[in-house]
Structures are given as C-alpha cells and as structure tokens.
C-alpha cells in the first residue's frame, strides 16, 4: 500500500500549495458579491458557478480550503500535545495519580464536545472578527479533542513500562530521565503521529458540522463547513451538482489523511 500513501501525500501537498496560492489564483475575492449573476451555472468566468448571493464558488472554495486545511492540523497538534503529556503521565505515574488522571480522561471523554463548542461560541464577544472566531473555534476543538488520544497513549505507556527492554535498562542502572528520552518517547512518537493523522479529518468534519448548524466560521469568511451548508437543500444538489465540490474535496482530503495516517500506524 506504499503507492496509496504516496498518492495521498502528493494530493495533500498539492491541495496545500493551491490553498496557499489562493490570493493569487482565485478569480475573485471570497466576499465579492456579483448579485446580477446569483445562482449562475459554471462558466468561463465562474468555473464552479455562483452561489445564491452572487459569490464565486471557486474563490470561496480556495479560501475555505485555507481555513479548514491549516487550522485543523493546528488544532490536531494542540490535541496530540495535550494527549501526549496527560496520557504519558497517566501511564507512567504512581498508581494514585494514574487513577486520578484516568478518571479525568474519562470525564473529558464523556463531555458533549459539540455542545461545549456551541456554548463557547455563544460566549465570544460579539465583535470578534471572523478570523478570530475561527481561530478560537479551532483552538477550542484542539483543547477539547485530546481525551481519546490520551487514552491510547496512556495504555501504550503502561505497556511500555512492563516491557523487557525497559526492565533491562533499569537493571543496568539507566536513570529515569534517560529511560524517558531514549526509550519511552521514541516508542510513543509514531503512535502520537498516528493520532494526529486521525484527528485532522475529525476536526475538519467537526468544523463542517458547526458550519451546517450555522455556527461555524462567521460570514463572509468561507470554510468547507459553511459551503457544505448549501447541501442541506437536496433539491439544489440535483439542480446544481457542482455545489458538491467542497464535499468531494473534503472527502478526498479526509481519505488522504486516513491513508497517510495508516502508513504512520503501520510504522508504529
């Protein structure tokens, strides 16, 4: 399956490059309204057609890709960072502290993340700019998305503690710090990377869910989620199938991350 991983990586890099180049290659600004062309089908001027408010869909898709593809990995980094620290502590700490941390992880796992996000969005200052609000949204996703990864990492840490190579190192007089840096961290790293690749598509989809609820990225800033909200009208899909483009891109990117992550998991 190495070839599949290569294709996935190539596709992801290509999408990232295109998204980075959005200000130069987008035919129009993401907020520009061409009201006389509202709802038009794809044409040479508007390759993906025009939305109901007269905005060029291709331009919005390019800018929306930047939002979703850059912020989801950032949020995943926060989550995996937190999961790494808390999970490893839960796996390696004294029994009492380990039990407390496990309880904390379980508690966080049971929280309804979507509702917490909705509450947090409702508490944001009203004049928060669209960019700030999307940054806060992804920051919250990152801060709330770590418990599942932490559970995996704490389990792996415990398994490492009982491994023969770590016992041998201890018997040879290797210090705790050295065992952590030389033997534990390198063994947990591939697992953390795999968790990262799992979380990226999850966060992309979470933002899309918030967008469909109308609580994602604020107008006029586009994101895949806000663009997917057009799909809540099934009649529009049969009338204008090109509005499926963000869904297709999201699906392909999520699949690519999954394949790339699978390779990481295979290594781990």
């Amino acid at each position, binding site marked *: 399956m190495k070839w599949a991983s290569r294709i996935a990586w190539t596709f992801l890099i290509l999408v990232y490059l295109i998204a980075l180049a959005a200000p130069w290659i987008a035919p129009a600004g993401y*907020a520009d*309204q061409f*009201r006389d062309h*509202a709802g038009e089908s794809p044409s040479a001027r508007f390759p993906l057609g025009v939305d*109901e*408010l*007269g905005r060029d869909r291709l331009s919005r898709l390019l800018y929306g890709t930047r939002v979703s593809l850059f912020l989801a990995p950032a949020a995943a980094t926060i989550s995996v960072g937190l999961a790494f620290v808390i999970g490893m502590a839960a796996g390696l700490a004294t029994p009492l502290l380990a039990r407390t941390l496990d309880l904390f992880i379980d508690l966080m796992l049971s929280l309804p993340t979507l509702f917490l996000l*909705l509450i947090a*969005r*409702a508490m*944001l200052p*009203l*004049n*928060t*700019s*669209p960019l700030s609000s999307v940054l806060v949204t992804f920051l919250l996703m990152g801060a709330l998305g770590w418990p599942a990864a932490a559970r995996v990492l704490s389990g792996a840490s415990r398994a490492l503690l009982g491994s023969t190579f770590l016992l041998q190192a201890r018997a040879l007089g290797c210090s705790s710090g050295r065992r952590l840096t030389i033997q534990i961290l390198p063994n947990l790293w591939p697992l953390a990377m795999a968790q990262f690749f799992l979380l990226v598509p999850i966060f992309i989809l979470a933002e899309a869910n918030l967008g469909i*609820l*109308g*609580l994602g990225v*604020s*107008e*006029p800033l586009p994101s895949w989620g806000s663009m997917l*909200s057009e799909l*809540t*009208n*099934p*009649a*529009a899909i049969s009338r204008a199938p090109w509005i499926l483009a963000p869904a297709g891109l999201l699906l392909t990117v999520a699949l690519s991350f999954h394949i790339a992550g699978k390779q990481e998991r295979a290594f781990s």
Partner: protein
Amino acid sequence: MRCFSPFLYAALLAGQALAQTGGELHFALSDDPKTLDPLQVTEEPSDAIRYLTSGMLVRIDRKTFELKPELAESWTVSEGGRRISFTLRSGVRFSDGSRLDAEDVAYTLRRILDPKTQVPAGDQLRPEKGAPVVAVLNPREVSLLLPNPVGGLEALFDAIPILSSRSPLQEKAGLGPFVLSEYKRGAFLLLKRNPNYWKKDEGGRQLPYLDAVRIEIQQNREIEMVRFRRGELHLMSALDVDSFDQLGTSHGAIDAGPTFDSEMVWFNQVSTSPIPAYKKKWFQSAAFRLALSEAVQREDIVKLVYHGRATPAAGPFSPSARPWVDTRLKPPAFDPDGASRRLAAAGFRKESGVLKDSAGNPVEFSLITNSGNRNRARMASLLQQDFQRLGIKLNIVMLDMPSLIERISRGFQYEACLLGLTGTHLDPNDQLNMWLSSSSDHVWNPHQSTPETSWEAEIDRLMREQSSTSDTKKRKPFIDRFQAIVHDQAPIIYLVHPDALVAVSSRLGNAAPSVLRPRLFWNVEQIYLSDGNTAVRNKP
C-alpha cells in the same frame, strides 16, 4: 398573479355543486399541540386543532378580512365600544347533542374574563381596572359590558371558542366541524365529522363534506414534502422558497401573497445596556438609523433570498393588511449617496473607506441572528455588503435561539438584531405589545417607566387612543400617524414581508389559501376530496 381573484366566491359556489361527500383530509403539523383546551391555546398546532373543533360567535373571512356571523347571527357594539351584544343562531347543538344558548356564551366569557385563570384567549378583553359585566338577556341574547372601550372589539371573538356550560364532556363538547376522535402523541390526531354541526351548504347539504381529518405530527419538512408529492398529504403550509421552487406551481405550490410577517433589524437603544456609550449614541440617532435603512437593497433581498416571493417592507403593516396599511408610505429607496449625505450631516465622516463618528470611532457593530435560518443568514450577508458601501463594518453573529433571546430580552448584550415578527392577526392591537414603551416586547428599548423620547410618547398615545376606539374609521387616522412616525424615526428597519407559500393537492376542492392563519383550512367545512379528476381548484 399573487392574490386570489374576486371570482373566488363564484368558484366556491360552483365547487359546492360539484362537491363530493366523504374522504379523509391529511396534512401535517410540525409539533404536537401543547394543549387541547381551546381556551389555553398559545401556539400554532393547538390553534389548528381549536380551529377545526371549536365554534366562534363570529369569524374573520380569511379572504375578504370581513367579519362574518357564525354562532351569532348578529351583533351590535354600543356605548362607545364598551358594550357588545350577540344574538345567537337558533337550533345550534354541541357535538354531544346539547343545545347552545346564551348561558353557554356567558359561561365562556366569565371563564376568560376571570383574572385568576389568566386564559390567553381573554388577554385583550381583561381590563386593567374595573370589572366587566356579562348579562344573559334571554336564551338567545347575551351582552358584555367592559369598563373601557376596546378597539376592534368584535374581531376579538374570532379567537374565543364557545364552551358548553352543562355538558359532562366540558371543553370536549365542541361546536366546530370536527371532533377529536383519536390522539397518539408524536404520531397523529384523528378528527371525525361533528354529526351535530350547524352549517349547511347552499344546496342544503350537511357540512362538512369531509368525513375526517388526519393530522400527522411530522417535524421533518423533507419527509412532509415527499409525502405530499406521493399524494399521502393534501396540504402543506409555510413552505420555504426552496421547497416552493422545487415543487413548482404546476404541482400544487401556491403563492397566496404577502403575509403579515416582517423581517426586520433593530438596534439596541437600552440606556443601561453594556455596550460602549458612543455606539448607543449612534443607535439612538434617527439619522443613523434612517441612513442605514436607505443603504439596504430590499429588492436584492426579495430577489436573492426569497426568489421574488416577498415584498419590500415600508413599515409594520404588509400590503395585505389592507384596512390598516398606509399606502402612501413607500419602502425606503436604495440610495447610498443619500445615506452618506445623511450620515455626514449627523457628524460622521469617511476616512480611507472607513466611516468614523465625530469622535473618530470607526463605525463597526455586530448583528446577531438565530442560527439555522438560511434566509436570515443570507439577508445578513447582503446587509454586510450593503453597509460596507458606507464604510461600516458589520460583524455577523449566529446564535442559538436561547442565547439570542437571553441577549435581547434580559442581558441586552447585543448591538443590532435581525429577526422576524410573525403577524397572526390583522388588527393593529396584535402589535400593541411591541409598540408600547412600557412593554417587554418593545424590542429596541423595553420596560421604559416613562417614554425616553417624544416620538415614543406619541406612539404610546396613538396606540392607546386607537385601542380604546371601536370604530375602524376613527382608528385609522391614529394608525396612519403611527406608521408615519415609525417611517420617520426607523426604530426598526423593516426589510421584507415574505409571501405565504403553501401547497394544495389537486384532489382538493374549494381550497382557498389565505395569508391569514390558518392559511389552508380556514374553510375546512367546504373543502372536499375528489377522485383526482373532478376537483375544482380555486386557483388565482
């Protein structure tokens, strides 16, 4: 063509000749009725059941907006609008067979006027001071004397169901065309024909034509649409524009014309609200509000958001509210240059594309609206672009409804709000709560102990004057003056009045959609089901 033609009644009469008896009408409600007690109705599903099962003394004709006799064959208003006397129709029986007489009407009126019961149906009749007197003059005549005159007194009886004072079935003994037969919560309500219903058609045939009405509880509008297309449902009310376009006029979609509903924007003018003082100063400036109203392209909202199925709004009354709307007032014309001049005269100036007030503060504010409403999200985006032309930065914030209500009614932590107002009644008193400065529904600045501006004091006076006069001709000048003040001060920027979009099966005869609720089954006793080929449709 948006409204029904005057030939409607000719068609209705023709429909009566062709009408077939029997069959079961099917339609859906989005929620279970909260109550089956007709006096406690506060929401649409309960109102639908009340309309189908209860009898009223008078009814507002949903097409002509004229008051028509029902259980009362005549009535008189006297003593300057303080007294109303009804003469009841003879031979009317409740669904349990018991006879209707003046004691029943008196019993109902006493129940709704009792301040202890707080029956919603009597809200507008219960006086703040003094006690109303209900008197039975004879078995067919009853009168009500109020301490003060009430505007549009007789029309209020369109929403007061008459109950039996003697029936052991109590409020279950109805005077409407149908009686509740079966109710499975969350699934359906089955209403059967009332065998004792008093109405007959022109040919002397017993009404209603239908045997039963089955009301499904269906929250998913997509499923409702699919079932309508399959012919499993015969009516659909409150279609959104996308569903309306999807269905098409050739498949039963009907535009009944502009509703009494309004989509509107208002600014937070509460003096104690936790927003910066300089922003309050903007919002309290009529010039600022009027300039923003002029900057709105209402025609674009009609075209892009409602696909042409709405009307630009000039004020609180839609063009359908014919007796009350002041047709001399037009929606503010889109005039960005005029808006800029007005703002400049009020001390605002544009620097590098950014509008600033006289103290140099850039004009930026947030607009909250409820999430999940596609039309409002689209309108907010259009407003954002329209205001940007003036150099104003508008931040759109979507909030879930409870958070939004909390902000606009208790914490006042908001700057501007985009919401809709649902107009359920034609009479201006329906909007009284919104316009009285002391009211909790006076959205831009509620609960004022004394009016904070002279124009709000004037609106208070006009609304009170009109509500204490029963003669429509005498009330109209007050309402016109009120509309002129709202037009000149723009405490609310009215955007559009959406059309009433409904769907009616081709199997239904005598269906005549109206903009006034209930839009589709207001003449349910005359509606009939055909085999699909012979129905008379009263299309525009």
